[in-house]
């Protein structure tokens, strides 16, 4: 990525907010509805355990600063989480109001209300003690896990440097989340807040600009918040033709390019949330037809049902039981995809039905192909140190190597921002305990 590809506001008007902000009177009315449950299920359902009733009651009493700090104490990325979290399966999904025949409390919009107030007033967390604990920590990767880890470490007076290979930190929050959920500017506000807490940011490609050996010598502990590598490849002929762009690069490109154009007819391949994000974005960017192909059916599709519903409203057309076998290209430019019809049989190890190809083939003509098959873990660099990101202790983030901790997508295989924040925070607390024990 070059410095010229920074997020631009070019396409923002095409992506109005999925959920508009609450004005202060609506926020007050909604906050008042909250029952203030004891040991609230919403708090338990949040991976970062934000004390939800507490921050909501503070909105009700007009204590917005206290409300924001309640959120930030648990989750430094409270703003992006309020916009990007799939709250239907988290806090709002667990709200007792569901069983009270009422709408759940609009926790996400209330959290955003407090966060918008906080960032709008350019508030900063309480000044923290200087470097009161000996030892320095390096966070590799500048995404949500590292930001949360670094913020927690700073709160405890530990010196932290974040190494990120992109021109702007924030990881997928800055570059990879659909516009109608989270804008790069909001992600960057959070980055600036973390910077103001005394975290140092360095743009460097670890392994190229700076070696892991150097970092290992310079820092007492290292947190790996690497995220996922490139998206997995289709592994079929024609994949490198022009007009084929994987979903993450697609999202990053439209966010960062002034002149990014999508074809008239788009084929998206995959059934996850990122596939849906890419398909919706293609519609908003002007594609007349967007077709999403998935090798299983609606029932097995990993995307959240509300994401799927949203996509139908956007006009995305869905095709089930279809697996690509070849990208059809001429003179290096893709003009379509050849699909094999699939058949489902008994469940495999993942609990989902196994997919078998049939002899039935069909060709689909399109201008752009967007594979969205999930991301590969970034692990080559670590094998030499005996680190396997699949065996990280989830409570502490500790890897097999005593100096290394890890969290976020590179460990959990790609979940939500809030899961990355929770991982980063837990790893920070474990590192703090270790550093204090060493002193």
């Amino acid at each position, binding site marked *: 990525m070059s410095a010229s590809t920074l997020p631009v506001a070019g396409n923002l008007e095409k992506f109005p907010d999925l959920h508009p902000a609450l004005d202060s009177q609506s926020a*007050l*009315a909604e906050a*008042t509805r909250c*029952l*203030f*449950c*004891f*040991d609230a*299920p919403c*708090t*338990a*359902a*949040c*991976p970062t*355990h934000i004390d939800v009733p507490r921050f909501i009651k503070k909105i009700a009493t007009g204590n917005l600063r206290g409300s924001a700090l309640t959120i930030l104490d648990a989750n430094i990325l409270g703003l992006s989480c309020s916009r990007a*979290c*799939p709250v*239907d*399966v*988290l806090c709002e*999904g*667990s*709200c*007792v*109001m*569901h*069983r*009270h025949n009422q709408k759940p409390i609009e926790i996400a919009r209330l959290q955003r209300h407090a966060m918008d107030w906080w960032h709008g007033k350019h508030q900063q967390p309480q000044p923290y003690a200087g470097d009161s604990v000996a030892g320095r920590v390096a966070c590799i990767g500048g995404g949500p896990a590292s930001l949360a880890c670094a913020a927690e470490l700073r709160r405890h007076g530990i010196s932290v440097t974040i190494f990120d290979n992109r021109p702007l930190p924030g990881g997928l929050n800055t570059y990879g989340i659909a516009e109608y959920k989270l804008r790069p500017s909001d992600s960057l506000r959070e980055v600036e807040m973390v910077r103001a807490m005394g975290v140092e940011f360095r743009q460097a490609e670890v392994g190229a600009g700076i070696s892991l050996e150097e970092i290992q010598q310079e820092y007492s502990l290292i947190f790996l918040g690497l995220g996922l590598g490139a998206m997995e490849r289709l592994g079929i002929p024609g994949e490198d033709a022009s007009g084929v762009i994987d979903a993450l690069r697609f999202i990053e490109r439209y966010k960062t390019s002034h002149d990014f154009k999508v074809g008239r007819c788009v084929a998206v391949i995959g059934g996850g949330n990122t596939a849906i994000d890419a398909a919706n974005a293609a519609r908003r960017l002007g594609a007349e037809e967007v077709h999403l192909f998935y090798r299983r059916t609606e*029932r*097995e*599709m*990993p995307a*959240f*049902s509300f994401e799927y519903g949203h996509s139908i409203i956007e006009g995305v057309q869905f095709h089930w039981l279809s697996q690509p076998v070849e990208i059809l290209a001429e003179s290096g430019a893709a003009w379509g995809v050849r699909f094999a019809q699939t058949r489902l049989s008994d469940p495999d190890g*993942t*609990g*989902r039905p196994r997919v078998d190809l049939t002899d039935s083939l069909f060709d689909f003509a399109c201008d752009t192909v967007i594979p969205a098959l999930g991301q590969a873990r970034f692990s080559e660099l670590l094998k030499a140190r005996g680190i396997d990101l699949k065996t990280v202790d*989830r*409570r502490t983030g500790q890897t097999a190597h005593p100096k290394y901790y890890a969290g976020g997508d590179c460990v*959990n295989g790609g*979940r*939500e921002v*809030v*899961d990355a924040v*929770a991982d980063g925070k837990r790893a920070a607390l474990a590192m703090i305990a270790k550093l204090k024990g060493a002193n």
Partner: protein
Amino acid sequence: MADLTTNFAGGIRCPNPFWLASGPPANNGEQVMRAFDAGWGGAVWKTIGEPIVNVSSRYSSVDWNGQRMMGLNNIELISDRPIETNLREIAEVKKRYPKNAVVASLMVESKREVWHDIVKRAEDAGADGLELNFGCPHGMSERGMGSAVGQVPEYASMITEWVKEVARTPVLVKLTPNITDIRAVARAAKRGGADGLSAINTINSITGVDLDTFTPRPYVGGQSAHGGYCGPAVKPIALHLVQQIASDAEVGLPISGIGGVSGWREAAEFMLLGCGTVQVCTAVMHYGFRIVEDMIDGLSNWMDEKGFRTIQDFRGLSLPKVTEWKHLDLNYKIVAKIDRDKCIGCDLCYIACWDGAHQCIHIDGHAVPEAVVAASRARLTVTPIAKLDSVQPGNGGTPPLRIPRVDEVECVGCNLCWLVCPVESCITMEQVDTGRPRQSWEQRTTVA
């Protein structure tokens, strides 16, 4: 079909017992006539006396949980219009609405001939009755009127006597709650010859302080003054004071109930504690005259359901059920029961019982509330990926571990859990047989 027609205090007749209280809604003839068109049975005119000058602003309120005007406070004085104007309009209203009751509220300086004069003029104008304002707690009291009279039984008795010397219509005395024992003034009014009582007038109040200007409300040029509090918030206080005078053997006068009546339910409550009519002000100020429609309709339907034909059939029915604490049965016992099918798992009953009551509701597996919270915070939670993790968003039943358990042996039957539970009839308080006969504290201590 219920019959709501009322004959109050020996001669004030009206089609129903719902009256506008003396206040802004009954300020002039035009308002009162529109109120009668809407269905109000009577109106106590805004207090007539030598015209005063008011300030701006005049009202302030207490909001509660998003609801406006749970309580209202005012520093407005009596009528600011000339006596002749008010009396001329009373005459006009009575001419056009002969069946509705118009009661003239009066307040003049404490001189016998001044009272004689105003009483005669009000009755000549056609008032069906008189209400002596001995209750207004702000402004007028500084000038020796209103509650300055109502707080001294001798004054109240004396002025009532003066009025009765010339009055031909029923005389009601309006009582102030801003007194140690309201029965003292009620008895004084009776001695003075009053035909009925109106209770209560507003309660001395400061509704709040503006946290930016540090000035209490209502704000008048950088200052404020205490006002009179009314509205839904004062109903419990009013009901108690009404019961006090209704149960007093020395009083024995008809009562027009005032204080937080917003609908037929409150009206029925005041009547069950002895009132023959009720007066409404704040609810009309909030929603307009139209609210009387449901007051009439709702009270009639309730009376039909209960088999009461007239208000007289149930008036005072609850008075024998109010007793002194020493007569209550010490051997009556109830305990809380939680309906597991209805419980939504908010656990408010649990924390209320632990922190605010008697520690007899439990969440099994944890000794104290702090342990419950600590266990939740220690839980490692990840976002479920709906179809991979086979977790569906939580519209299922309440997790069994979130449904609290009542220790029925320890439960003292205080009602707190039932009061905090947001779900209707999820917690019920049920009687348990103690196997012991009825015994009051008085009986127990006499036996001993």
